[in-house]
């Protein structure tokens, strides 16, 4: 009897040990704060990938669970505390996040590197993150804004626009983007008459617009947020007749802009990350079946980030960060069998058979340089009060 008891206790202990080997992924996004309207879909995207992997039953490392944490998008201290909690008390094996560039950098330096945890961010786009010390632990499925700067300069140069005024939201994102654009535009012979910051959350932007108007330029490049200062600057520019057409960066893409400003916005244009690949449509079908909006900004990138984490783990056969971090680039890039959303089970099978895979995913992932998306953009123009896609870059 004693022996039986001992044996069963030992079995339970072993079973407990096996459970502890299951994989846990922390999803850190700004569920409160300036991005709270898009983060639910981003979180759902990541959880969709996890659910798909669990359902396939092909993931050798056990069941995958997800824990959410709030990055707040703007408060680095709160974001670091949330990440610290996920890593030390929830014992997550990887972090899908964070969303905004500033908090992502803070979590990377204060939590991910000291604890040796891999982070894959779906939406941090600051160029500074390309060169940040990361011990090979940081990746992103979003392109660096250095790339967006190039795309913006290309679009403006093709339209024959020679001089622009630039206003940016005064944070890591806005500053990084406007600087990379200014450099790229100057390299194509364009002239930036003024590169001035604006603060978000103010009621009145007429003073900022006064300075922009004084500097002049054929049009205004607005590197801000659609529900924040960016909209205020555009409204004040139109009211005072300072500018009539605007270039809208990815943060300025949203139906609310057209709703609040109206017909005067016709003729403005811009570009947002996006592809015309099969993956995007496939993902949207999966998303609507799961009950969320697959076209929401950065939701596809979030799905891809979570999928890459799990595929890299499967490929390395372990959830130990130092062992699988090196596999992320391998599974994301050619050569190998192409993997679209909804095919994660197939991908895991191929990995188990030792076949190379090339994860394409929902956002046509191609990781370059220090592990960031090469970035494809959808160029659009506003005509008759709606966004019309004119091409892909």
């Amino acid at each position, binding site marked *: 009897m004693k022996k039986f008891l001992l044996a069963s206790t030992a079995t339970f202990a072993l079973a407990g040990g096996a459970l502890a080997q299951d994989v846990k992924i922390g999803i850190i996004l700004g569920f409160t704060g300036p991005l709270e309207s898009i983060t639910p879909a981003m979180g759902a995207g990541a959880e969709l990938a996890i659910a798909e992997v669990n359902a396939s039953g092909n993931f050798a490392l056990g069941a995958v669970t997800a824990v959410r944490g709030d990055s707040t998008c703007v408060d680095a201290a709160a974001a670091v505390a949330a990440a610290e909690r996920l890593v030390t008390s929830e014992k997550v094996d990887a972090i899908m996040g964070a969303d905004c560039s500033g908090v992502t950098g803070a979590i990377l330096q204060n939590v991910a590197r000291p604890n040796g945890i891999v982070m894959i961010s779906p939406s941090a786009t600051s160029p500074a993150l390309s060169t940040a010390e990361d011990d090979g632990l940081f990746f992103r499925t979003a392109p660096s804004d250095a790339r967006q700067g190039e795309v913006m300069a290309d679009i403006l140069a093709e339209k024959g626009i020679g001089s622009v005024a630039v206003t940016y939201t005064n944070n890591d994102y806005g500053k990084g983007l406007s600087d990379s654009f200014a450099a790229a535009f100057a390299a194509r012979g364009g002239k930036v008459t003024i590169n001035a910051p*604006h603060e978000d959350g103010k009621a009145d932007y*007429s003073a900022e617009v006064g*300075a922009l*108007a*004084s500097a002049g330029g054929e049009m205004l490049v607005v590197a801000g947020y659609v529900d924040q200062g960016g909209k*205020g600057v555009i409204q004040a520019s139109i009211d005072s*007749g300072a500018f009539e057409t605007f270039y809208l960066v990815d943060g300025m893409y949203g139906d609310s802009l057209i709703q609040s400003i109206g017909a005067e916005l016709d003729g403005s244009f811009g570009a947002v990350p996006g592809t015309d690949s099969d993956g995007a449509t496939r993902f949207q079908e999966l998303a609507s079946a799961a009950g969320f909006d697959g076209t929401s900004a950065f939701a596809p990138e979030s799905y891809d980030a979570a999928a890459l984490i799990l595929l890299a783990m499967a490929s390395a056969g372990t959830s130990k960060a130092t062992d699988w971090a090196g596999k992320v680039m391998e599974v994301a890039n050619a050569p190998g069998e192409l993997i679209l959303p909804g095919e994660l089970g197939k991908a895991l099978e191929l990995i188990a058979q030792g076949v190379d895979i090339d994860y394409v995913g929902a956002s046509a992932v191609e990781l370059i340089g220090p592990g960031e998306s090469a970035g494809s953009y959808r160029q659009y123009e506003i005509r008759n009060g709606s966004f019309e896609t004119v091409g892909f870059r």
Partner: protein
Amino acid sequence: MDFLNGLVTFLNFVFIPGAAYGAQLALGALGVTLVYGILRFSNFAHGDTMAFGTAATILVTWGLTGLGVSFGSLPTALLALPAGIAITAALVLATDRMVYRFYRRVKAAPVVLVMVSMGVMFVMNALTRFFPGIGVNDINFADGGRFIIGVREFREMTGLQEGLAIRTTQAITLVVAAVAVALLFWFLNRTRTGKSMRAFSDNEDLALLSGINPERVVAVTWILVAALATTAGVLYGLDKSFKAFTYFQLLLPIFASAVVGGLGNPLGAIAGGFVIAFSEVTVTYAWKRVLTWWLPERWAPDSLVQLLGTDYKFAVSFAILVIVLLFRPTGIFRGKSL
């Protein structure tokens, strides 16, 4: 022609926005100055009283538009304004009854009342954000006609290269502010209650001896403050946009206006409002475009000719506040010294 173009640019980007902003500050400063003159403390909750009043007015406006009521080419919010004022007056009277009255009874030092008003400020801000649909949203509740004259129309009408826009809300701000100030002065100078308030402000003991009921004076003051704060808040919100947090930022320019004009002096509050508004706008404006029109071609500036970046707008009010307190603590119109 060049001179006219420059003048139009100046009017469009400096004078008209500055005048509207000045009127909004003046109304706010009048409220601060009334509290200071009669209740004898600096009311830090004033900014959030404005926010509360505006939020209340917005809710009534939504109710009215929901019923299909509109005010033609004028914003419906003007119809909702009296209701907003009534709600705000109820709130400040309740605050006075629950909070300030105790400190008046114990004859607390003014600095204690200032701290108390900061507490009230936080509570009021929270209350404002409890309103359904207000929260942290950016709300634009101006309806009706947007422009009296738009940039394109102006260019076509005059043939000038520069355009001039006058928004309906800017004109309304100036008109409503003028009416409110006229009513206030008539009330303070011509009515019995107004005179008793001024007597109470000049010398509390003498006023009490002559049979003036202090609680009545206090109550009337709060109602006036609520009316001024709500009007200022609604005009600011109509002209710009409403957000529960931004009114807190208005506190500094409003106090600067009241102090520059002379605390406790209503005329000074109005002058102070315009002084602060025009200082903020002119110091942070980039004069390049105006000067390019006005100066001969050889002298046209290459730089922006901007004294301070627009981010330093509030630093301007702060600097003026410090200078006035250092060199003329009683303000331009000889109010009470702090």
